[in-house]
């Protein structure tokens, strides 16, 4: 089924066009990679798709309903976003933070029940932080804080995951583990993922589709096989690329003179 769709979506920040009349269609079972240079508007696009930033024009359709017609709560039940910045003004423990992901699923007057607690505990186990459940957030390293945010998103268990730089601060091991997790979810539970990545080779390995933000609001979309080649990468990053043959597929590397 079609999870997330846009019609003629136009977004700009301070006179710079991020995308111009974009038609996008993300189906269940697809993992999309979002590529673009610094400042191209990857975060802005993700925020607009999550409904936390107004687009200039166009419509966003979430599970076949216009996003604008849904309450924030209804959106949060279906779509979750991993933000790039975490604001921790008040002290909070790891487990409390992860449990906050259940908020859209709990009635106003109810408290988290055992099921919610279990989901949070499982998510913490998934990011290997079960032993730090009672820690305060300000006692975590950057990578651990990022894993708490990922666990919160897992606890939210939406149909569509929007991930803004999910691999930030993470060791290679965790990068692979988490990308594996999201790919597995996508395939086994009919979810969809759209994530911004800096590493083209991770995108190559984990994504089924790509969305490339070029200059001046030009956008390329398509499958990885169609889109990922030295030509598009040079267009995207403005440096020459070379394609290397590996044992499990090809690798891309910028050519340094």
């Amino acid at each position, binding site marked *: 089924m079609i999870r997330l769709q846009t019609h003629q979506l136009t977004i700009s920040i301070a006179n710079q066009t991020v995308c111009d009349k974009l038609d996008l269609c993300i189906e269940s079972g697809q993992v999309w990679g979002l590529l673009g240079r610094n400042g191209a508007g990857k975060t802005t696009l993700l925020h607009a798709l999550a409904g936390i930033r107004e687009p200039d024009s166009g419509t966003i359709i979430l599970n076949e309903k216009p996003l604008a017609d849904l*309450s924030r709560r209804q959106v949060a039940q279906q779509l979750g976003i991993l933000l790039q910045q975490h604001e921790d003004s008040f002290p909070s423990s790891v487990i409390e933070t992860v449990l906050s992901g259940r*908020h859209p699923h709990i009635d106003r007057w109810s*408290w988290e029940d055992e099921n919610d607690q279990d989901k949070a505990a499982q998510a913490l186990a998934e990011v290997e932080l079960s032993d730090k459940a009672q820690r305060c957030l300000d*006692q975590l390293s950057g990578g651990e804080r990022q894993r708490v945010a990922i666990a919160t998103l897992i606890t939210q268990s939406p149909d569509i995951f929007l991930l803004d730089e999910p691999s930030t601060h993470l060791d290679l091991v965790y990068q692979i583990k988490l990308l594996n997790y999201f790919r597995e979810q996508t395939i086994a539970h009919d979810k969809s993922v759209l994530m911004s990545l800096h590493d083209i080779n991770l995108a190559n390995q984990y994504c089924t589709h790509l969305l490339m933000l070029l200059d001046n609001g030009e956008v390329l979309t398509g499958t990885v096989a169609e889109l990922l080649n030295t030509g598009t990468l040079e267009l995207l990053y403005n440096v020459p690329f070379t394609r290397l043959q590996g044992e499990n597929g090809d690798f891309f590397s910028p050519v340094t003179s």
Partner: protein
Amino acid sequence: MQRPISVIITLLIISIASVVVALSVGSYTLSPDQLWMTLTGNGTPLEHTIVWELRAPRAYTAFITGALLSLAGALMQVLLRNPLAEPYILGVSGGASVLALLAMSAGLSTFWVSGSAFVGALISIVIVFGLSHASGNWNPSRLLLTGVVIAAGWAAVINFILSVSPEKPLRGMLFWLMGDLSHVTATPLGFAVLLVALIITFALARPLNILARGELQAQSLGIEVKPLRISLFLLSSLLTGVAVTMAGSVGFIGLVVPHMLRLVVGSDHRILLPTSVLAGGSLLMLSDVIARTLIAPQQLPVGVVTAIIGVPFFLYLLNRNYATRATQ
């Protein structure tokens, strides 16, 4: 879950003990026996008058005022995303003070002074609300700046009134500005406001937990941030307005009580808000006992006492907290 419940029970016991102390202690101290006799209607007429007409209204008003200020402070801290926010930071008490002082300099009765204070609080709320609403921007730092500047404006007017005021009402004015419970009359209104506020804040408590994690995160977890901010602003300002109307600008309680409880019970507002109410109420009630007994027969403004006992207690909690963290 164990810990919050034990904290709530402890605070309930402290609250009841504070009531007993507030009713018994003073220039004429009652023994527990005497107090019991008086409460059950078997005391002497003098004791009856002391307990029911002098001490009970003060204790009641002190509790409600402390509770309202603590609740308002806790809400304001989330609204402004700033642990240093306190109920008076957005100018509510400034507006209330200006009109209350004007009423005092006109020689009006306590009733009119309170009424003017409430009108002043409302005027200040409307100004800050209008400015924020007109800009369409309810982001915390902008709201904070607007409020702080309005508060500074009120402070200038207060200083002006104090400078030109004749000697006679000046002492009363200063007491009012520091928070004073010596002229209170108990009205059921305060209790009603506190009860309604508690019910509303309980419905808001979980959204508040999420809002405390940042605006974007709150939105992405299903919170309509702007309506929540507006309700928080109106609610916390009105509670502050009611508190100031009852007892003048009692300082310190609204800043420190929510903070203390964040250190003790954590940041879950479903626990934090009701415990702040109990702790704030008890603290102000006990402070008032000290205010009227410390240098009796002379009375101190209660705001002086809240700071004197609040500061060391807060510093103790803060240091204890850092110490336990360091050993973890």
